[in-house]
């Protein structure tokens, strides 16, 4: 069997004593403790600074950002960005019951699997400020392809769901239970530099990425402490 042959070869090369139980203990400990390594200082700041940092990073990657105080004006913001356009939403946005029908310029189309779209509006789990990365997770309400098949992608982000470091996001995911099939960090529009090293947007995914940050920083946010 390939597996036993391959692992046998690995063990022989590592010169392992079969009776050595400390190795298994070391592996179990490392995984169970999932200790945090060095977290950059820029990821450990007060929440309003992290929101600015998020915006700074993601706009450097050619995404656009709008900030609104409340979800009440989100349809206006979407319309302002899309102009007169058709668009799709994912089920998470559907649950927000936004008054799209009151907006004449926007035509809401039903989402069809494996179909390209003009624009798609989705929600995200949150965002990581240190590199300006939106965090999306697949679920019954959010298909990964809904985030990739639109020419334009608009993401609604609650300000309170912005964290400083990746590690804070992993902790949130752990607390929620099992890992979703797919978690993707989106840090800008789809791009390629494969022709003469010059960045061109719109390689395979959205040509444009627009982030709408909704609401305010929470008052009780605690950044990750430096452990090492």
């Amino acid at each position, binding site marked *: 069997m*390939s*597996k036993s042959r*391959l*692992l046998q*070869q*690995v063990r022989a*090369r*590592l010169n*392992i004593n079969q009776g050595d139980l400390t*190795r298994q203990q070391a*592996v179990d400990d490392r*995984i169970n403790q*999932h*200790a*945090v*390594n*060095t977290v950059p*200082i*820029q990821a450990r700041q007060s929440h309003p600074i992290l929101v600015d940092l998020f915006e700074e*990073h993601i706009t450097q*990657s050619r995404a656009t950002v709008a900030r609104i105080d409340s979800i009440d004006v989100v349809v206006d913001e979407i319309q302002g960005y899309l102009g007169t356009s058709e668009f799709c939403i*994912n089920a998470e946005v559907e649950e927000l019951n936004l008054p799209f029908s009151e907006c004449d310029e926007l035509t809401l189309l039903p989402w069809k*699997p*494996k179909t390209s779209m003009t624009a798609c509006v989705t929600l995200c789990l949150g965002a990581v400020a*240190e*590199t*300006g990365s939106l965090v999306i997770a*697949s*679920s*019954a309400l*959010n*298909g*990964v*392809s*809904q*985030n*990739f098949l639109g020419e334009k992608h608009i993401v609604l982000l609650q300000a309170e769901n912005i964290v400083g470091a*990746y*590690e804070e996001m992993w902790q949130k995911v752990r607390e929620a239970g099992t*890992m979703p*099939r*797919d*978690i*993707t*960090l*989106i*840090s800008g529009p*789809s*791009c*390629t*530099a*494969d022709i*003469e*090293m010059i960045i*061109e947007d*719109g*390689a*395979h*995914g*959205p040509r444009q990425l627009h982030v709408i940050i909704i609401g305010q920083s929470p008052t009780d946010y605690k950044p990750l402490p430096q452990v090492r």
Partner: protein
Amino acid sequence: MDVISKDFVPLSSSALKDSSLQKSMSLLGEELSTRRKLVVEALPEFEQLRDEARDVKNHTLAHLDLYLERFEEQVKANGGQVYFASTAEEARQTVLNICQQSNAKRVTKSKSMVTDEIELVPCLEANGIEAVETDLGEYIIQLRGERPSHIVAPAVHLNKDQVSETFFKHHRKLGFNAKLDNRADLVAEARQILREKFLLADVGISGANFLVAETGTVVLVTNEGNAELTTSLPDTHVVVTGIEKVIPTMEDASIFIRLLARSAVGADISAYTSFITGQRREGDLDGPSNFHVVLLDNGRSGMLGTEFQDMLRCIRCSACLHHCPVYLSVGGHAYGSVYNGPMGAVLTPQLANLDEAAHLPNASTFCGKCEEICPVRIPLPKLMRFWRNKEGAAKLNSLTMRWGLKLWAMLNQYPLIYRAVTGAGVALLSRIGSDRRFLNSLPGIAGNWTKYRDFGRPEGRTFMSQWRERRRGVDD
């Protein structure tokens, strides 16, 4: 792995005369080293993260059997399958079987060096399965029937006009009749053609940048979004990667996310970083119903417990390529292997064999820049020296070189003879072209040096003789 590294010398000679390649290479070197420097300076913790990355990899490699078992357990718990392949042939056969069992006619592939290593695409095509590379660079070279010339930017040896000609030649039959001279239009045309491929694919094949043992997660890093479409649209997803890619936890993965894009392309992060854990969950809107991971050995385990174990830390960022004066002079194709630059010079002799690839560890100026910038601190020059020793011990190098080295070693053992010989040489050289600072042609085997570069003319006396004289002056 099919390598043509024996042709390194003639291939690099023609590369040096290829002006379009030279232009691409100097652009690559300047751009990426500048960009890397800027983002590294903006992250004060960078050096500490490099230490941690090295330590995580060392720990994982020392417990590799156990981490692989844990990873497999987790993938299975998420409904996926793991296959262990000792050889390239086993890996190809495994992927082919999966495709055939899913009645696949069309396969999309996102970028993966391991699939290039095992030559997977030709194997699928020989069995009547259309396999399309979806990374733009890989797509371009697939159309041209070329090998990647760089492990991250596979078409970096080509310019826009060459890409335009390639598209014109191959896309006409698909109804695209215009010859494009604008970069954005070229990207848009490829996007349109490949979008259709994504939507129709039966199987998606990806590599993996990292495997997380804790959760059975596969980490994929791209800018284009091709990996996300490859892994979320088809009904079957096959991951093909090397056994050394496993790391313990998501927290450990975070170190590498912080290092990878900064080292590779001088960006804080790439546009997309996906963490894929198994197959479609109940109720999920998309994602494959079948999830397979093929773990390849192909010579990797043979590096464990040897002086080459450090090389298994490599995360394929390519920083060593675009900081290497040799790679930047001759480009990737001269190496005759899918892995090129300093990392390829260490890896290729192991994955192919030393007899085929002995030239590569010699293709180094030993300037040490690769080790200086490697995010996981692989001592690449030291490892190349190990290969050189093995080459000498196996008598794979030429008789002239072996005798030359013996002579050199002997000279070094007898300081008096050494000083006499070098003193005579320096005196002789100083008399040639005494009115110039640099010599542009030298007789005999020394002519090999001046063929491509000038030789600084010695001033007439060796360091040792000048030193002695000054000492005498001081003593008086």
